[in-house]
């Protein structure tokens, strides 16, 4: 039986893009309040699975968000999506303008931003440590700062399910620390966070569970086992079997 309070329910999800099967028979559930890492090698289907969960690519099987089929899901203000940084196309906008997009699910067309909207945007930028960069052009920010802006955009809404696609990819250590702080606060607030990660980095102590994909299939799903200090290899669940042990220091 499916728990209707689960944030995400995926049952036998298949995704085929241009005739190529990318995700195969993926079945799992994410309970509200969990911080879940989705791991796997390049090309294992992690990003496509995230996009399927959000209804961005066609799929077979069942996907439910908060108990509602994703095709019929309308309460998008509950979702905070952070795509891969390279997917966004911004020429001239400031960091503030990008973050303000995160409020649009709560705003009516043709109505100006309210005081609450402006405050939420300012708070989100402050939370990622970029209040002082609000007026800077997004394209002139470093990769790490751009990632923080995209996280702030998701924070500016009222989402209780965050889906982050490789938030740590190519970002500097300062940003990793800031994002770990954000993740920690989201956990404390009972939010659900599902993130594609290649390596846990500073997120390690904050992750409840890891789902590992290989060739589009879920090959491991279980509690995340943090490595003991002093070990040189951070072992992801079943990672050794798939050769994804991560050397650190």
């Amino acid at each position, binding site marked *: 039986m499916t728990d209707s309070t689960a944030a995400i329910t995926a049952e036998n999800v298949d995704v085929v893009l241009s005739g190529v099967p990318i995700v195969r028979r993926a079945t799992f559930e994410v309970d509200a309040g969990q911080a879940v890492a989705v791991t796997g090698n390049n090309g294992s289907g992690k990003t496509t699975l995230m996009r399927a969960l*959000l209804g*961005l690519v066609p799929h077979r099987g069942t996907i439910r968000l908060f108990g509602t089929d994703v095709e019929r899901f309308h309460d*998008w203000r509950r*979702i905070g999506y952070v795509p891969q940084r390279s997917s966004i196309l911004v020429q001239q906008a400031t960091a503030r303008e990008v973050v303000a997009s995160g409020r649009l699910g709560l705003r009516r067309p043709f109505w100006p931003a309210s005081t609450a909207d402006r405050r939420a945007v300012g708070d989100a930028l402050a939370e990622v440590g970029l209040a002082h960069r609000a007026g800077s*052009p997004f394209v002139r920010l470093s990769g790490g700062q751009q990632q923080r802006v995209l996280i702030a955009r998701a924070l500016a809404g009222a989402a209780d399910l965050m889906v982050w696609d490789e938030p740590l990819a190519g970002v500097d*250590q*300062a940003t990793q*620390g800031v994002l770990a702080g954000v993740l920690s606060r989201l956990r404390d607030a009972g939010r659900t966070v599902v993130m594609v990660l290649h390596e846990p980095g*500073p997120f390690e102590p904050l992750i409840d569970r890891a789902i590992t994909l290989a060739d589009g299939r879920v090959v491991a799903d279980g509690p995340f086992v943090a490595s003991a200090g002093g070990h040189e290899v951070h072992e992801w669940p079943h990672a050794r079997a798939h050769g994804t042990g991560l050397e650190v220091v």
Partner: protein
Amino acid sequence: MEWLGLEFMQRALLAALITGLTAPAIGTYLVQRRLSLLGDGLGHLAVAGVGLAFLTGTAPLPLAVLVCVLGAVGIELLREVGRTSGDVGLAILFYGGLSGGLLLASLAGQGTGTLSAYLFGSLLTINATELWIIAGLAAVVLLVCLGLLPQLFAVSADEPFARTIGLPVRVYNVLVVALAAVTVTVSMRTVGLLLVSALMVVPVATANHLVIGFRRSMLTAMALGVVAAVSGTIGSYEFDTAPGALIVVIAIGLFALSWPVSLLLARRAAPAIELVDDQPPLQHEVTEDHPHVHAEGCGHLAVTHGGHVDYIHDGHRHAVHGGHYDEH
């Protein structure tokens, strides 16, 4: 200044003002979506509408609007389902529209001479009815461009994200290309179908040199568009030149001028824009009783930070400072 008393000049100036406002407004979205040449393709498509109007003996403006909007929406829907890439779609617009228009015009017994009023504009011969139609359509374009600015920006910048916050992405995408089509046809009597795209793109590029921010860029582009359009119209009367061409030449001149101005502005603003990572204002707490001794190979990720080494520990950084660790 005797031109101010001439009715045809008053109409021409009003039409130029409207074109100067609307073309860069919708152009800002096209440039953002890297569809700078869409206006050009739509201009060619509108020629088919004009040719059809000649053949059916109807007024060219409404028919051109209709053909152009239908074509633009069709191309956008094809792009969305991935049946055609952006540049192939534009090529079909270019060649199909232009050849179709010329064919229809010749079938109607009209030569390219008659078409040239639409290809290159004929600002000084605009009549009152045309001016009303232009004003009405432009008001709709401006209302949407400014009123839906945050939504249209979000969709242009990051379509998947826009979908996940529940924005009607397809509606907004179709709206942008439909309004671009309306703008092109509205502008065909002022700068002409072959040059309208310049007024949609060049002021935007100029504004991008001068100001920061999507909204400010759009408003600045509109102001630059008005300056080019109005001064070009007056100049064409004074120097007896083709108004459409002069408007575009002035717009390009402003673009050329914006280079040195932007360099000057960048030099002044340099301290405010950093390309390197800054250190975020994290709290700085002190841990006196940390039992673990961080050192090379201790198992915690070591990072260089501001001339010293931090160790990532439980989601934050530890830095050795005197006899304790600073919490970063």
